[in-house]
């Protein structure tokens, strides 16, 4: 105890504590802001899909239903936590936490605006791919532990789907890495500024396409929502979950969408920067802060998710596997070859 105290009063150790405190505060701010966006992403989804289907969406709670997410959150908070008989209890308890943790920790390396990134590590992209694939543990463990046929089938399907599209996603980002010459997300954003369009989405259009399709499949969204297929598997791997545990899975899914959207924004749409051709026409836009651009682009991608969900019917499982293995992977390889050839010639 004395030793610890002596260590604490040494000059320099106070600075370390201060650093840690600053990082903890930053993390708390990021998590709080993202959770707020998750709550309102559910509201946004219901509104968007409602209007696309000529309905009104939620509108009873608060003006235009704006307090609906708060009401939902309170309801889930007070709901009974049912653990099915003969379920594998420790695994059942932990699976949603694993899902949430895997989804949240990807946010550690995303640069939200210039200079604001919690961990500026030089393998940021690899870190996101690694951590987001940990989320599939949460899925397969919950499917296994619930002791229900629907959960089990949903978990299996989800696992096969996530790992199939993981390959395509990993390959689609190689083109970005070649062009940026780095795995650090901040440097990837900076590298895009030197290209005429100000974003990699134009030279890497093939990679962008593969990435977006794989991202939709990775987050189990329609039209690739087979693991949750309401009309056949009721809710897939989390059918037995209720109350707060269900809320954690639900939040993890939306955080996953936000992470994939943020990754698309940083790798393909230029992150927090403004494309040069926009400021050439409207010079006053240069004064808009970077975080506004980032969130604007992110919400465009999220809107795109909802749009696709409202437009396309669900794929069959064999079609899903065909798209993943026979179309997206060859396309991603072709993209790598084209990028490599262009890089060698130019």
């Amino acid at each position, binding site marked *: 105890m004395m030793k610890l105290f002596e260590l604490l009063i040494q000059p320099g150790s106070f600075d370390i504590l201060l650093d840690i405190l600053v*990082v*903890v505060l930053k993390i708390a701010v990021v*998590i709080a802001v993202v959770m707020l966006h998750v709550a309102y992403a559910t509201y946004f989804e219901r509104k968007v899909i409602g209007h696309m289907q000529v309905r009104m969406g939620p509108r009873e709670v608060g003006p235009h239903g704006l307090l609906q997410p708060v009401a939902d959150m309170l309801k889930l*908070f*007070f*709901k*009974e936590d*049912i*653990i*099915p*008989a003969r379920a594998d209890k420790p695994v059942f*308890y932990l699976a*949603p*936490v694993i899902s*949430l*943790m895997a989804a*949240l*920790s990807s946010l*550690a390396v995303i640069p939200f605006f210039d200079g604001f990134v*919690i*961990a500026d*590590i030089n393998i940021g992209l*690899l*870190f996101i791919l690694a951590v987001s694939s940990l989320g599939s543990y949460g899925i397969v463990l919950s499917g*296994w532990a619930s*002791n*229900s*046929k*629907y*959960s*089990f089938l949903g978990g*299996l399907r989800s696992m*096969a789907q996530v*790992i*199939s599209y*993981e*390959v395509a996603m*990993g*390959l689609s980002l*190689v083109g970005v*890495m*070649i062009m940026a*010459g780095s*795995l650090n997300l901040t440097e990837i954003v900076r590298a895009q500024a030197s290209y005429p369009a100000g974003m990699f989405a134009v030279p890497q259009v093939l990679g962008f396409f593969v990435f977006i399709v794989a991202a939709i499949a990775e987050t189990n969204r329609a039209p690739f929502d087979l693991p949750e297929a309401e009309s056949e598997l*009721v809710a897939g791997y989390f059918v037995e979950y209720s*109350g*707060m545990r269900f809320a*954690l899975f639900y939040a993890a899914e939306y955080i996953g969408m936000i992470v994939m959207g943020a990754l698309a924004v940083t790798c393909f749409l230029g992150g927090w920067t403004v494309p040069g051709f926009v400021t050439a026409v409207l010079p006053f836009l240069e004064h808009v802060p970077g975080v506004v651009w980032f969130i604007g682009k992110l919400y465009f991608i999220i809107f795109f998710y909802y749009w696709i969900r409202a437009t396309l019917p669900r794929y069959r*499982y*064999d079609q899903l*596997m*065909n798209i993943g*293995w*026979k179309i997206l*992977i060859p396309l991603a390889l072709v993209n*790598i*070859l084209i990028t*490599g*050839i262009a*890089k060698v010639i130019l």
Partner: protein
Amino acid sequence: MPVVLFLLIAAAFGLGALMMGGLFRLRRPYPEKLMPYESGIDPVGEPRQRFSVRFYVIAMLFVVFDVEAVFMYPWAVVFDRIGLYAFVEMLIFIFVLLVGYLYAWKKEAFRWE
């Protein structure tokens, strides 16, 4: 270091939310409520059944292709500095891979009934 902190805080956030909920929520279990969901009827048979061997094939293919994708990352990062030499080498690597890929395709490893 910040990454480790982030992981800890994320885990604490999830567990904390569950524990906070545990203070307030009801707990009134009875056998019917705890039964696994099966469209309203009593569950029939064992839930953890045998499943299609296709899933194993997909898992093995995933290991092969994902490792190969990871091999490409360092190559892509230093591409600028090595240039043509690296490109030709990667062409050979992709060609070898492509042979395996076509073999798997012809063996109908990707087909799903």
